[in-house]
């Protein structure tokens, strides 16, 4: 079965306060990097998945993203299905 690689980016929804992002933004100014007007922290999840074809891989990864990796109440997610690694065996 082909091996698929994906990256799922999980970010807080814009309406949700990100106190950790705000604290990091404050530290950026202390580092001397001024002008950081927005800094939001999310997660990048790298996934490798065996699936019979790209459509199935995408469907499985969407389920994974929506039901486990992100909580849609507070988070958005985007899925990047990278090129079929084609490793197979």
């Amino acid at each position, binding site marked *: 079965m082909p091996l698929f690689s994906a990256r799922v980016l999980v970010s807080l929804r814009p309406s949700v*306060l990100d*106190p*950790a992002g705000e*604290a990091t933004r404050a530290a950026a100014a202390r580092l001397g990097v001024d002008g950081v007007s927005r800094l939001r922290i999310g997660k990048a999840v790298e996934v490798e998945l065996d699936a019979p074809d790209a459509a199935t891989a995408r469907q499985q990864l969407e389920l994974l993203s929506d039901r486990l990796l992100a*909580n849609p*109440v507070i988070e958005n997610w985007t899925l990047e299905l990278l090129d079929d690694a084609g490793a197979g065996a």
Partner: protein
Amino acid sequence: MTLGVVVFPGSNCDRDVRWAAEGCLGIRTRFLWHEERDLTGLDAVVIPGGFSYGDYLRCGAIARFAPVLQEVMAFAQRGGRVLGICNGFQVLTELGLLPGALTRNRHLHFLCEPTELTVQPGACSWLQSYGAGEVVSFPIAHGEGRYQVEPEQLRQLEDNGQVVLRYCRNPNGSVGDVAGLSNAAGNVLGLMPHPERACDATTGGVDGRRLLGSLLS
């Protein structure tokens, strides 16, 4: 009367709940390991505080898929009484038994202190021993207790009388000062403060006794 107390890897208030229920109130308890599926003979279930599965990914995100919780979900849907305390509240929102989500405290601090709460029991069976508008003191101990829900849904919860516990002085930035929520039917309660730590006079107040004690009435 037997109270089930769910135990995940990383739970740390399971024995506090047992002491409050058995030691202080004489309610028999049975620990439910996270892989267990048998809830027969239980009258109510507590999902206690702690750091289930290390709080990896998000608080409660992995616990939600524990075998025992599939049974707790069915138990709640049959009208069984379920109480989620702190991490247990986070688990109940991840499970979808209660709406919304718990997020990082506004000022990032882990808060560990007594807090005053206003009770509006509504239909919540766990809170029937408290008067409407009564102020009680329960301790909080959390880093991720800021309740988050869209404003429209918050209004709906308020209109339904499901916002049963509010902070008198909001410590963490929760929308609507929400400290605890009930489901519409009133059999499921989730709250960030710890009523089980307010049951033994030797370690503080006893305002929490009536909450667990509601199982006896």
